[in-house]
């Protein structure tokens, strides 16, 4: 989907970000210090830089002014002042450690949508999902999905290979203030499986929720 540069000096965290962004289909490149981060970011090959503020040699604050690529800051600093500074310097978003994986994925997606525009379509197993027209085709024939079913499918595609709880899905698809039953989710998932024949892909994860495995 997108080519992302991860600049973070903690190997464990760098690996963590890479693992998760790779899962949802992004191509990742890892750097561990400020100098290489700047050098790689200047190449212009990336759609997005995940930038740690406290990098050895050059701090994230120093790097951001010199590059044109969109930036999401990752930092342990939580002060409002720092957050504002980061955003003022032109960061597109801000993630504070420790962060939730889904939050990271969500923010990456949001920034990419703002900067690159909505990705047009996603294809798997002869199924083509067009995000701009909100249409879905299976083997060339259009499958009619209800609006909530389409949004549920989009959420699964965005967070593919990650298990999503029913609560999380309600939050993503039905908004926070939805007061319905979590079984609504089960019904919609069943519909998606039936209409698209993706029972093998859209798996139930024991005690967790559902995961679209691609």
């Amino acid at each position, binding site marked *: 989907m997108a080519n992302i540069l991860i600049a973070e*000096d*903690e*190997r*464990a*965290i760098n*690996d*963590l970000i890479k*693992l*998760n962004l790779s*899962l949802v289909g992004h191509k990742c490149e890892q750097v*561990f210090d400020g100098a290489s981060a700047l050098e790689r970011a200047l190449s212009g090959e990336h759609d997005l830089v995940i930038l740690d503020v406290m990098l*050895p040699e050059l701090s994230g604050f120093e790097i951001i002014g010199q590059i044109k690529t969109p930036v999401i800051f990752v930092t*342990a*600093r939580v002060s409002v002042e720092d957050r504002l500074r980061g955003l003022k310097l032109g960061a597109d978003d801000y993630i504070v*450690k*420790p*962060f*939730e*994986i*889904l939050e990271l994925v969500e923010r990456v997606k949001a920034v990419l949508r703002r900067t690159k525009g909505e990705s047009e379509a996603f294809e798997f197993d002869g199924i083509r999902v067009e995000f701009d027209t909100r249409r879905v085709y299976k083997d060339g024939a259009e499958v009619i999905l209800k609006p909530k079913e389409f949004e549920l499918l989009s959420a699964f595609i965005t967070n593919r*290979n*990650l*298990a*999503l709880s029913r609560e999380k899905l309600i939050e993503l698809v039905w908004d926070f203030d939805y007061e319905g039953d979590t079984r609504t989710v089960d019904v919609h998932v069943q519909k998606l499986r039936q209409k698209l024949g993706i029972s093998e892909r859209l798996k139930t994860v024991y005690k*967790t929720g559902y*995961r679209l*495995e691609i």
Partner: protein
Amino acid sequence: MNMRFWQKTYILTLILFLVCLNAGILSLTLFTYSKSVRSAEESAGAEQYYVARSFERDLEDMLAASRAQSPSLLMTSYGNYYSERGVFLSFERNGRTVFSSLPEEIEAKSGTIFHKKIGGVRHIVICSDVSGYTMIFAKNVDSLDREFRALTLTYMLTALGVSALLAAVLYFILKSLSLPLERLRETTAKIGEGDLSVSADESGKDEFALLGKSFNSMLGTIKSQMSALEANAEKKQMLVDNMAHELRTPLTVIRGYAEYLERAAVSEEERLVASRYIVSEAERLTKMSEILLDTAYVRENPPEMAEIALDEVLCGTAERLAPKAKEKGVELVCDTENVTVSGNALLLSMLFDNLADNALKACAAGGKVVLRCSSDSASVEDNGKGMNEEELLHITEPFYRTDKSRSRAEGGAGLGLALCKNIAEAHGAKLRFESKIGKGTKVFFDFTT
């Protein structure tokens, strides 16, 4: 009433002076007046005596010359004559007034002298027996009253003038004398508002200058204590800030990988990698808390001191770290002589373990770490990569790392040297670092007591 000290002094001094001045002037007036009265009485007495003697003589002469003539004629001529000179005369015989030029009747006994207002004017009245008559002699002493009034007026004007002059002069003198005090007050008011940059006036040699001097020395002490407190608070705040920051990395890793394990369909290998990260970061947190607790313990509790063999402590450290040294391919040597010091064996072991561990970390394969001790100092030397001056300045600060990624990769919590510093301080000793980039580092543990 909100009166300044100098104002109180001023008013009290002024009151005291005015009382004294007026009392003095009053007594002077009274003294002068009574003197005038006395001299007036004396002169009146002398005159009365002369009148009495003349009258006696004239009466005798008249009686001798002619019996027909009445004494009252003589009395009338005396009376008229003396009336013009401000003297009233009156003659009585057997309680009956024979002659009187007095405008009113006066009761008087023979042989008395007193003052009386006659017709609103003061007179000295002298009563005596003259040739069988009781003669009342009343001399006008209005001048005495006039003199008294003039005297009083003069003295009052003088007192007023002197008082006004004094009031003015005293005011300026006291005000200028209390000026240094006022300046000191302004200085303390500024300090009260938190401005410690001011200082008191020390010029001159009087009490105010002395006060200013001791005030400034007090201010100096306060300033240095304040800055020490501020530095201490800053250090503590930095520790807390760093700590909050340091906690976030392991928390991110633990949370992130746990969530990854929960959400992703992971392979066996990925599961292992993730769980290893989780375990090692949890271990780091454990270690961090242990060292922080140790540091706090050493700081709060003075260690129990005993006579211990320093060389045994160092060799113990060498033994404990031998496997690690071997693994890294670093030579670990214990070059000691028998030295006995007063210390806590457990804490000193902790200290040298930390120092030796750091030395091992600084060395590449083929390096060498030497533990030495003499009677006043012990040292840990390595020929590793060394540190620059900037790094040397900060290495005993909590969470400071010379090489962040490597230190963390080797499981350092960034707190070891901070603990070592505390242990050294608890022993009354000092840690001293000598280092050159590329040459290696020497850490000295100097016993100062």
